[in-house]
């Protein structure tokens, strides 16, 4: 064969393979970016979607045009199911825009985009204590904050203008999901794991059904999840100088983000529900033994004031020592057994999420508990905090062994911090 012919055939092989790879990626859509076609047994389960949620969720939200949006970090993403029977019919379609590990600003931008699109009628924002505390490095509050790379993925800027680089960034993101070897490998994994009942996935409505947790529960036991997560939580809470505001300030970027969103929602007439995510008793005990309980209370007070300044917002608190959070995890070696309401100390299950939705929407779905959660306002906040303190005392007195274990862990971490 001549070299010329060789080059032509090489080029044909190259082009054909790149085209095939791109087609495979678009059809299988391992990250749920295109949603051209979902078919059970072929690409309905998306095991690799979790790795790109930060990139894909803004596009999915724009495409979904939901009536109701759930926003927050991984807690609502795992806990609030858009298909729950506890939603009212007018809420549908519901989209879960929760994204693991994202901060309050990103969450606020998600809501801003939903509101600016004009489709959304109400949103539910799961707020998380740790998202608001820092070791004093955060910027004091102002809006808009300095622009970052993620801002390019929103069609509007933080101050409401059209994002100049949005089209280009979208093109780059589409390219990375089509002309990409990682995407080809992820497409292959997607096809291969369709029959795996415990494979991680994200549904088209944004919900994470936590199937990978089930596998860990079955093979290693739920106790392992608690054993792994508790030290992480305590380590985070033991960082020196945790505060809600930068030094010398009384306001932060995170609170400013909430204020901005509430104001925007008021102007747009969008119904707003803020809710404080529930934690398992281990998490709450960790807050107590690391000395952060007063900070948690201050945070709730500040949120209450913020919500009360809004015309449409309500604020719910599900973060308490109650019958749902207080069940201890199964023994380390007990495989296959799991708590009904929690995956691990930081993440509640869909079953608890359903009860929260029922309570916030006041829909009489199964298991409705009128005593679960409290709606906060400036009048009842102090009484509410007092009640939580009493519940905490009662729990710690009744669960001395578990509390002692977490306290010992906190002392260990504190020693590590003092003598690295």
């Amino acid at each position: 064969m001549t070299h010329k012919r060789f080059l032509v055939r090489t080029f044909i092989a190259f082009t054909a393979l790149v085209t095939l790879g791109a087609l495979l990626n678009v059809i299988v859509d391992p990250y749920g970016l295109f949603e051209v076609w979902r078919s059970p047994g072929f690409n309905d389960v998306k095991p690799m979607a979790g790795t790109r949620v930060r990139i894909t969720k803004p596009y999915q939200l724009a495409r979904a045009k939901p009536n109701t949006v759930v926003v927050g970090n991984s807690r609502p993403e795992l806990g609030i199911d858009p298909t729950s029977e506890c939603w009212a019919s007018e809420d549908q379609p519901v989209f879960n825009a929760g994204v693991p590990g994202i901060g309050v600003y990103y969450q606020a931008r998600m809501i801003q985009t939903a509101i600016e699109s004009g489709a959304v009628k109400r949103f539910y924002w799961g707020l998380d204590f740790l998202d608001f505390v820092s070791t004093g490095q955060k910027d004091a509050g102002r809006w808009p904050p300095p622009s970052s790379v993620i801002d390019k993925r929103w069609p509007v800027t933080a101050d409401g203008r059209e994002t100049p680089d949005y089209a280009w960034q979208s093109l780059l993101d589409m390219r990375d999901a089509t002309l990409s070897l990682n995407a080809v490998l992820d497409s292959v994994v997607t096809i291969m794991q369709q029959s795996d009942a415990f494979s991680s996935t994200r549904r088209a409505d944004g919900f994470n059904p936590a199937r990978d947790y089930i596998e860990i529960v079955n093979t290693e036991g739920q106790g392992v999840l608690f054993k792994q997560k508790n030290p992480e939580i305590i380590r985070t809470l033991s960082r020196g100088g945790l505060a809600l505001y930068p030094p010398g300030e009384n306001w932060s970027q995170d609170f400013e983000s909430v204020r901005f969103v509430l104001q925007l929602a008021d102007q747009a007439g969008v119904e707003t529900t803020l809710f404080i995510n529930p934690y398992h008793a281990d998490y709450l005990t960790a807050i107590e033994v690391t000395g952060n309980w007063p900070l948690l209370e201050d945070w709730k007070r500040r949120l209450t004031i913020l919500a009360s300044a809004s015309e449409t917002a309500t604020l719910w608190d599900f973060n308490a020592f109650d019958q749902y959070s207080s069940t201890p995890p199964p023994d380390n070696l007990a495989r296959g057994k799991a708590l009904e309401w929690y995956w691990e100390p930081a993440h509640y299950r869909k079953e608890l999420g359903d009860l929260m939705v029922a309570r916030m929407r006041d829909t009489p779905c199964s298991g409705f508990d009128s005593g679960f959660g409290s709606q906060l306002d400036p009048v009842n906040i102090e009484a509410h905090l007092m009640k939580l303190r009493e519940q905490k005392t009662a729990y710690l007195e009744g669960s001395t062994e578990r509390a002692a274990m977490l306290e010992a862990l906190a002392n260990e971490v504190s020693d590590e911090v003092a003598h690295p």
Partner: protein
Amino acid sequence: MLFNSYEFILVFLPVSFLGFYWLARWGIEPALVWLVIASLFFYGWWNPAYLLLIVASMVANFVIGRLLSRFRQTSKPFAKRATLVTGIGINLGVLAYYKYAGFLAANINAAFGSHLAFGEIVLPLAISFFTFQQIAYLVDAYQGITKEYRFSHYALFVTFFPQLIAGPIVHHGEMLPQFMRAENLKPRVANLSIGVSIFAIGLFKKAVLADGVAQYATPVFLSAAAGQEISFFEAWGGALAYTCQLYFDFSGYSDMAIGAARMFGIRLPLNFHSPYKATNITEFWRRWHMTLSRFLRDYLYIPLGGNRRGRARRYQNLMVTMLLGGLWHGAGWTFVAWGALHGAYLVINHAWHKVRKMSGRWLAGPSVVGRFASWMLTFVAVVVGWVFFRASDFDAAMHMLAGMSGLNGISIPNAIYARLGPLADVLGNLGITSHLGQGRQFVFTYLWVIGLLTIALIMPNTQQIMRRYRPALAGHRTPPGAGITIGKRLFQRLFWRPTTLWAVAIGAIAALGFMALTSVSEFLYFQF
């Protein structure tokens, strides 16, 4: 500009290629000037400000080279020597300022409590490479080896884009005659098909293999830098992953350089020849970054006296050469330690060969077991060296080595432990414990490492695959017993030819490499 980028592959390379051959119709000069301009554009893409530095460096060295030639003709030995010393001094001074000033200030400040500062100095890309190339040129001009070149030719020798950023460190004697060759002014489709094939293999090595395994090395070294205790398997996984990453990164870069040059009809010197197959450290250095080894040998080791002044002096020269070679790679004590380690390895290796020679038959015969042991020892020594090479500081390197020695215990992820059934008890009795998390990381680290080491140790390298078409300037001859040959028979019929099968294979790996460009990373050797 990176070889592994869309702008290089889709725009820069085709435009430079077409421009070169279009201008070549008007003669050699316009074509060569075009290549110089293209190469400067390629360099300036990263930081246009440093274009001035490389141009000034070329002008200064060209003028000094001319002066040296003139002094030689007029027999002025003192002036000639003074000019050479000045020339080398200027080159080393610039290199020292940009590369070592911060390091020097930090050490002086640490030793004397002073506050010496040079501000923030950004290391210009490729400065170590073009400085060494030009020092070699000056030394050769002093010795009368160089010819009277035009500035445009000299500039192309320094800046020719395939070798500008990270080598091979080329010699004027091997490059300039090629640039002048009239037959290179006409595009030859054979050169294009060979060049494209070599480039595609390099792109695949870099973008798919090196970048693929990098994700398993980086977190472990970051943990070590953060002072965390690293267990046995984690530490070895990280060190081996980096060993593979560096190999495929540098080997891939070298292939891409050789392939890109070949498209223009230019053969670059071989820079890489399956170094992990070496069964002794001397052979390793004959195969790893071969043009740097050649430079250090010709312009440092031999001028120091080489092996001509007795064994003790030879060992001393080896140590000095390797220490400076280590420092060339970066301004940091870990690089000095890496150089010192390899210097010590070389001294031990030479001493061992002396013992073997003296022992007569007893230690002379290379048995299969002996060769395997030699390879294993060499490989482990190299991996230990890479720990210093990669670690951010000494403490991080020590944390890694402590883990690799088993001082932090041996454990495997609980997700694997829980699935082992009765074997878990056996491991427990052996003192192997479990830890939470990182199960997927653990499995994929070792899958990647096993896969990549199999390729590095068994498969033929690019030069061997392309051997029928003389891909590089000179091949590598392995002394008997100095390299493992596990896959030699298996792959002896694997060589490139312009056939349909090879067209599909090259098209496929080019497609994989191209599709891996969505996560672009720099070549590791760019930092040197």
